[in-house]
């Protein structure tokens, strides 16, 4: 602590350089938090699905629907307890920038499949009683300032035209990764107003015994093997994981960018510290002459780089926390996107490691400095 003033004075010796270095570390840690949050959201998304629910979709691809008649056939498969279905709507609310997911669902069976989604029973009843009714997530309500009973209009893209919906209920998921920015409405409403063009996009199947989910899935696909639309059935968890892989190898990309940024900043910080240390060779030599041990001088140099790195890191992480935590725009693209406390702690650990590593080389230089050579250079 006695030497804290010396560290502080050296840090503030060249304020512009220190500030720029702190900011560069801050930007790096901000990027880390942003990119790491993508990874955690992707991981959470692949985890959100249930192992005990099955998703049956067209084997050709998710964009190809299935005949509604499959409902009864699915219900008759041995080991199937309940079946529901849903379809992607893909409408636009006022502007394409107001993106959120909309699903047409079978109101009689869909929500009972998802006990983790909480809806007021009275609101659910009101929704069931109104064909143009919709249930929307709490996040979506807050994002657009909607209220119960409000009528909203979506412009259909897959199913053209202006579609009116009356908000009758609000859901809140137990798991944030489920996303609270979705909208659900009646499949019948879509069917009737699309000229009966809509068919289920996928089926949700609940096996009577969750332990037999794999066997039931195989049985379902086997029963549709020779039909015009063969199916692919997998657990909801695997289905979600498949969705995540549709992002391409985002995880790898994010990690690669993050690592590149980290090393770029590490080099910048290390270079700055070395420049700063080189400029003070004479002063290090003087301190050694006064009796400062090599170890103490090394620690002082490392303390400087650590201070720069930690201050920069805290600034970057705090900015990420304020700007990215519960960010509506990002949350609507990637449900569950938020900066977790664990990400902040990881970022702080990285800042500390960054400070230690970037201080290492100048610290070694300070320790190894020959006083005689350094003073001779000055003379």
């Amino acid at each position, binding site marked *: 602590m*006695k*030497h804290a*003033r*010396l560290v502080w*004075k*050296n840090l*503030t*010796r060249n304020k512009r350089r220190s500030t720029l270095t702190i900011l560069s570390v801050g930007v790096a840690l901000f990027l880390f938090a942003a990119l790491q949050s993508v990874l955690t959201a992707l991981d959470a998304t692949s985890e959100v699905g249930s192992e005990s629910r099955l998703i049956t979709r067209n084997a050709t691809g998710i964009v190809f629907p299935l005949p509604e008649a499959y409902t009864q056939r699915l219900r008759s498969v041995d080991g199937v307890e309940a079946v529901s279905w849903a379809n992607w709507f893909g409408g636009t609310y006022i502007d394409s920038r107001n993106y959120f997911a909309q699903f047409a669902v079978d109101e009689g069976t869909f929500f009972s499949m998802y006990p983790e989604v909480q809806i007021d029973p009275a609101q659910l009843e009101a929704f069931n009683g109104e064909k143009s009714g919709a249930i929307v997530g709490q996040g979506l309500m807050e994002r657009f300032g909607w209220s119960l009973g409000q009528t909203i209009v979506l412009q259909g893209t897959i199913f053209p035209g202006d579609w009116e919906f009356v908000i009758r209920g609000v859901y809140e998921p137990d798991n944030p990764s489920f996303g609270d920015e979705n909208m659900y409405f009646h499949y019948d409403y879509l069917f009737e107003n699309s000229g009966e063009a809509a068919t289920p996009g996928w089926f949700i199947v609940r096996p009577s015994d969750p332990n037999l989910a794999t066997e039931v899935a195989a049985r379902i696909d086997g029963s549709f093997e020779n039909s015009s639309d063969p199916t692919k059935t997998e657990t909801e968890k695997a289905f979600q994981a498949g969705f995540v892989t549709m992002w391409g190898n985002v995880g790898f990309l994010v990690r690669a960018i993050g690592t590149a940024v980290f090393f770029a900043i590490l080099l910048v910080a290390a270079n700055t510290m070395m420049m700063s240390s080189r400029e003070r060779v*004479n*002063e290090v030599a*003087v*301190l*050694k*002459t*006064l*009796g*400062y*041990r*090599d*170890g103490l001088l090394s620690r002082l140099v490392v303390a400087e780089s650590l201070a720069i790195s930690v201050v920069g890191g805290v600034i970057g992480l705090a900015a990420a926390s304020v700007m990215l935590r519960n960010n509506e725009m990002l949350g609507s693209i990637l449900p569950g996107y938020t900066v977790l406390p664990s990400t902040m702690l990881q970022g702080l650990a990285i800042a500390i490691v960054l400070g230690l590593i970037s201080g290492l080389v100048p610290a070694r230089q300070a320790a190894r400095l020959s*006083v*005689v050579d350094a*003073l*001779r250079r*000055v*003379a």
Partner: protein
Amino acid sequence: MALVELRDLTKRYQTEAEVISVLENVDLDIEAGEYLSLMGPSGSGKSTLLNLMAGLDQPDSGTITIDGSEITSLGPNRLADWRANHVGFVFQFYNLLPVLTAFQNVELPLLLTNLSKDERRERVEVALNVVSLSDRMEHYPRQLSGGQEQRVGIARAIVSDPVMILADEPTGDLDAASAEEILSLIERLNSEFNKTVLMVTHDQHAAGRAHRMMYLEKGVLHQ
């Protein structure tokens, strides 16, 4: 037993082409309280001898014993500790830290001790008072004249109450009036505070102020 005993001290430097002998079998005794000056042409080994006595450099052979400690056998950490407790070094170019005030520069050696903040303050004030700079404590080096900077350097050298002061051309960068002030101050440190002083200088007049003059030429010490 003398305060400083140099025995058979040899120092050579290896260049790409040849081995240069800087000091050859130097023997020297300095009694406690003595004031010595060391002269010689550039490259004669004056500063090397001073650096060896301060424990900043190691001889190729020979021993240096100061105040009972054979410093040539000490490791880097013990040598640093010894230096902090026994030697005050005065540089030609003052070598004050520009980011610290005069007070903070003088306090630097005391940060290595267990003294409390108040005790450190008291000692720094005494040291700055000795060099007549009590009214410049909060000034930064850039706000001081060359002579004042050197006086701060001397205060830093004496603040930990060392047995010996090594001064490497302390007046080499000063005008005549300031040089005179510094020489008087060094004289006073010797006479009033009983500090043993070894001063390297090119200046015949400055060297003449010492009790004993030595001359170093081609690595050989003439007393």
